[in-house]
């Protein structure tokens, strides 16, 4: 617990305190007066209100659309399941600029929907909500599905033979078992949408700002650190309130669950309910996820002389104005993402183990603390790093590790949230069984917990990886040597006029998609074979 705590304090608590202090302290005196001033501003309240309700609506919509997905991916076996499972995570890593474009092409003016039905969603809030679903579908599918696949299906069967219909059995038996992971997913989706930045900028009319956008504006554009500090505090307070709610929901500790080998729980679909579920989910995925991605692919292939790989070929060589070939960004991205994933897994894994082993008041508070980075503006963290980590021995401002560190801040909560429900569900008696067979606690952990959480750890790793692969907001504030990551390279290309640049940006986005999908797929293949004897 010490390591994650240290990590958290040094790389989150300290920088954020520093930047808030910079805004609210003058000559060593705290000016809390600003608090009431800013909070009294109707503009602030409007922003706060919009931020909250769109996040709540996005979360609800995401859960409603993605829980069937979690079910289908966890419990049904159908051709292409693995590939699709990796594919739904792809949106998560795409730069919002790029996906925003794709989304607009579909639901915006002159988009597919407009052409076909005269429906436009770009000026309502619907586009924002749908985009939020698009980005966070995988969060629910993966966190919830990861546990779901391991729940013993016979629990539900027991309910069925007691007269519970499919839905009732699910609601009364499976859902309670899933509650911690559903709550975790909901929490994360809420936090992501609560702090939504890019989506709001692209799809929201400029009148619709979230706190995050406002903090960005106040900090990065206007350098009004006092206002930004107040807003940051408001955001933190909201997140804390949220975490308390989350705690209340999941307080009733669900005891050990009977976890089984996920390989044995998936079955080919049977009966109209399952076929409908599968069809519905495939349709959702196709409409909501595949179509926008398809638009990207289409655009990346549209060259000056018809469709072709023109833009992809152009990516391969540096054209002089770029210091590196955009294709090299793939390597950079992978390296940063791997480092960030390693840090997140290490820190988050330690934290998750500590959290499930000890359940004191202190650790619970710590649990909440770890979630705070998700609810903190990237610009706050970025600027905080800048003014806090500027003295040796911690002058990391120009060091490359700052990028994975910042990305890991977002990855750690993921790892914790994904692992805690599963670790909490591992039956203590399995560890005992290992102990009486002579396994030390560490070996028992390796033998019992690790294989059971392995899948979830992979899920978590996939997320940490995807987060850092696609991270742009925080990365962009951190001064860094000339090693553009994929999203940065995409942004550079988009920042210039010309069909070539645009096409290459799309092609590079597709590359980003593929890198993400391939990595996640190979991560999934890392599942340990049902082991014989050793580990």
């Amino acid at each position, binding site marked *: 617990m010490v390591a994650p705590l240290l990590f958290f304090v040094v790389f989150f608590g300290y920088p954020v305190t520093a930047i808030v202090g910079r805004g609210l302290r003058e000559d060593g005196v705290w000016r809390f007066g600003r608090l009431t001033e800013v909070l009294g501003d109707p503009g602030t309240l409007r922003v706060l209100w919009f931020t909250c309700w769109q996040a709540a609506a996005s979360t609800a919509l995401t859960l409603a659309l993605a829980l069937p997905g979690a079910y289908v991916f966890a419990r049904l076996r159908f051709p292409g399941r693995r590939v699709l499972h990796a594919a739904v995570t792809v949106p998560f890593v795409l730069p919002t600029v790029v996906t925003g474009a794709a989304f607009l092409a579909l639901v915006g003016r002159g988009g597919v929907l407009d052409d076909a039905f005269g429906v436009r969603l770009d000026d309502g809030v619907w586009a924002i909500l749908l985009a939020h679903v698009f980005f966070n579908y995988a969060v629910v599918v993966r966190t919830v599905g990861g546990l779901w696949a391991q729940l013993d299906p*016979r629990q539900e069967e*027991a309910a*069925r033979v007691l*007269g519970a219909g499919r839905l009732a059995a699910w609601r009364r038996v499976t859902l309670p078992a899933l509650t911690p992971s559903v709550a975790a997913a909901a929490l994360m989706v809420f936090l992501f949408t609560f702090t939504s930045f890019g989506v709001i900028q692209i799809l929201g009319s400029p009148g619709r700002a979230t706190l995050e956008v406002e903090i960005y504006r106040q900090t990065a554009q206007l350098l009004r650190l006092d206002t930004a500090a107040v807003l940051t505090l408001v955001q933190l307070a909201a997140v804390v309130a949220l975490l308390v709610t989350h705690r209340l929901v999941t307080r*009733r500790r669900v*005891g050990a669950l009977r976890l089984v080998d996920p390989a044995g729980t998936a079955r080919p679909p049977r009966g109209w309910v399952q076929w409908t579920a599968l069809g519905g989910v495939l349709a959702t995925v196709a409409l909501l996820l595949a179509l926008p991605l398809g638009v990207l692919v289409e655009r990346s292939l549209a060259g000056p002389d018809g469709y072709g790989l023109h833009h992809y070929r152009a990516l391969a060589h540096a054209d002089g104005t770029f210091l590196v070939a955009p294709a090299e960004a793939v390597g950079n991205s992978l390296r940063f993402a791997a480092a960030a994933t390693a840090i997140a897994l290490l820190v988050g894994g330690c934290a998750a183990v500590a959290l499930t082993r000890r359940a004191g008041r202190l650790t619970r508070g710590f649990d909440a603390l770890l979630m705070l980075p998700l609810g903190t503006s990237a610009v706050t963290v970025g600027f905080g790093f800048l003014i806090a980590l500027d003295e040796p021995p911690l002058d990391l401002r120009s060091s490359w590790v700052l990028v994975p560190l910042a990305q890991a801040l977002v990855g750690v909560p993921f790892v914790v949230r994904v692992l805690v429900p599963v670790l909490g569900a591992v039956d203590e008696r399995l560890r005992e069984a290992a102990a009486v067979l002579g396994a030390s606690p560490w070996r028992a952990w390796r033998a019992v917990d690790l294989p059971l959480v392995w899948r979830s750890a992979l899920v978590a790793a996939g997320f940490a990886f995807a987060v850092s692969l696609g991270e742009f907001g925080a990365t962009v504030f951190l001064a860094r040597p000339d090693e553009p990551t994929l999203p940065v390279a995409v942004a550079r290309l988009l920042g210039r006029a010309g069909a070539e640049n645009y096409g290459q940006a799309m092609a590079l986005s597709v590359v980003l998609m593929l890198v993400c999908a391939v990595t996640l797929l190979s991560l999934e293949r890392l599942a340990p074979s049902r082991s014989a004897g050793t580990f």
Partner: protein
Amino acid sequence: MSLLELDGVRVRYGARAALDGVRLSVAEGEVVCVLGPSGSGKSTLLRAVAGLTPVDEGAVRLAGRDQRGVPAHRRGLGLMFQDHQLFPQRDVAGNIAFGLRMRRRSREEAAGRVAELLDLVGLPGAGRRAVASLSGGEQQRVALARALAPDPRLLMLDEPLGQLDRDLRERLVVELRQLFARLGSTVLAVTHDQGEAFALADRVVVMRDGRVVQVGAPVEVWRRPADAFVARFLGFRNVTPAHVDAEGARTPWGALPVPAGTAPGARTVLVRPSGVRLTPPEGAPLTGEVTARTFRGDHVLLLLEPGGGAPPLEASCPLRAAPEVGERVGVRFDPEEIVALPDQLP
């Protein structure tokens, strides 16, 4: 009319068939026990009837209606799982009341029934306990209560009393028997305890490798096991091939008397342990050395080694009269306890 009918039911796991053409019918109000070695498909049978395991071939009919495509919760039956599958998130009362709540019984009604059932299974007042804090046997009783609670038209129990001590089990068998009689319940119960099967069942079904090898009233099955397998499964060790003719059955133990009217020919013959009577060794047609003595509570089971290539013989005798290991005893056979097996399903 029969409430449950299985017609050539086959369930395959990969290449192996866990149920292989099972034909069976259970009449309304009947209590049928399924017996069979571990892995013979008993649980699979119940699961197939419940609609939890898809049937690859054949039909399951309930009250005459084919159940293909009918989901588990609409079959209106109850199943107590072998490993209980209690809901860990619910307390004891919550588990027991589950089926009632699913049938929209009022909360009060459910509470009353829960209390009643807790009394029945010997756990009065345990309603608020967490299921994880129960002992193994206590969990089993809660699972039993949960299955009993909604009074399903067909109740299926998978080893309902396996983890209980004899005293409690016997008491429960009696009470269940009365309960079923009172309610007219139709019951299909798996058990590995023959005493339980005999005490509870109107009929028993013996399974082997996914097939039904014998069906009949308990006394009948015990009196005339269908074949050597059933006989051995029922615990009889003295089973041997024999040639029956007018003088009796020729076996490795010599010529045995058989009940009058036994058809001649090559047969399998079973000698119940109680049919092996011990005599002083002098002048006995067959003698054997006692090689093992197993204390059986009520009596002692002896293993006799007759020598001369003949297989060992199992004999039961009262505790007081039991010879010691190593003693040599004479053997006389009681024709009443000798059966030539039909070796064919009746």
